[in-house]
């Protein structure tokens, strides 16, 4: 039994905190790498509709977003409060979707182009007329994989 009482020290040895900073730094780097700052400014108000059967989007890098909704309040004086289409950072018309899709396609590698998805982020109060126009335009540019963005609601 004397084996375990060799030192016969009194009191607990202090826990070394020198590795604590390393651990925290590691966490820090993780969050620094994963964080993405919002690239585009939302110019339209989008409150996504609710749905229960939503599926996750697999490849975020292969997704182009089309925002549809009414302009945000401080832009309403300039653009009115009719639903508008926002591509990247500006308001566009349906005819300009073609160029947008072409540009997005060019930015992708050859192999990834077939997996390109267009996410339609439309406000829940938008009328279907504008969305139908967008859909028809997408069909014309043969960007056929689409996703209707939605919020997951409780069942």
């Amino acid at each position, binding site marked *: 039994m004397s084996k375990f009482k060799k030192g016969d020290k009194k009191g607990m040895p202090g826990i070394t905190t020198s590795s604590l900073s390393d651990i925290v730094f590691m966490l820090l780097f993780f*969050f620094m790498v994963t964080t993405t700052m919002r690239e585009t400014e939302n110019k339209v108000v989008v409150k996504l509709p609710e749905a229960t059967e939503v599926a996750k989007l697999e490849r975020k890098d292969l997704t182009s977003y089309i925002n549809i909704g009414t302009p945000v309040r401080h832009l309403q004086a300039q653009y009115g409060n009719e639903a508008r289409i926002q591509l990247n950072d500006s308001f566009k018309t349906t005819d300009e979707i073609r160029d947008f899709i072409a540009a997005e396609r060019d930015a992708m590698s050859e192999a990834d182009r077939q997996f390109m998805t267009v996410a339609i982020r*439309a406000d829940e109060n938008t*009328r279907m007329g504008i969305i139908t126009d967008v859909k028809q335009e997408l069909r*014309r540019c043969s960007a056929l994989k689409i996703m*209707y963005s939605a919020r997951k609601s409780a069942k």
Partner: protein
Amino acid sequence: MARKTPEINSSSTADIAFLLLCYFLMTTTMNQDMGLQRRLPPMPDKNQKVEDQKVNRRNIIIVKINSADRLLAGNEPIHVSQLKDKIKEFLTNPANNPELPEKSEIDIEGYGPCMVSKGVISLQNDRGTSYQAYISVQNELVAAINELRDEWAMANYGSKYANLDEEKQNVVRKAIPQNISEAEPKDIAKK
């Protein structure tokens, strides 16, 4: 050289790092985009003669949403909450009703012959339909098909569709296909 250099007190680096960490924790957004995925039909070729794909009447159910977000499924007005059961009945046709879609035997790779419904859901909407109504109808359609897939997977593999492996999911997808046609927009003149 006898003098020792005093060590820098490093006990505060943890605090600094924590502060930074908190900042990034707050600003980071791990929002995952969720939604209903669809494949649009390709645009019909202009040179190609428009030949109406003759689909047997019994094989098609037309779901219409009007500008007041009211729903019409198979010629009767219903509520969105009833749509799922209606679609399920339409796709399964348990009593082999001649009014409901016929089934054909298809040989599925990895499973064998299986009776697959030929039913197609055609979704039509007005330009004035609200997006929320449209999505909730789409959602009900997907829900109906997902439930059927779960039931089929449960009966044949004893597990839910989501828990199956890739190969079996493919089989289930073929056994219960998702035939939703988003119709060409029609100009319905207001009379």
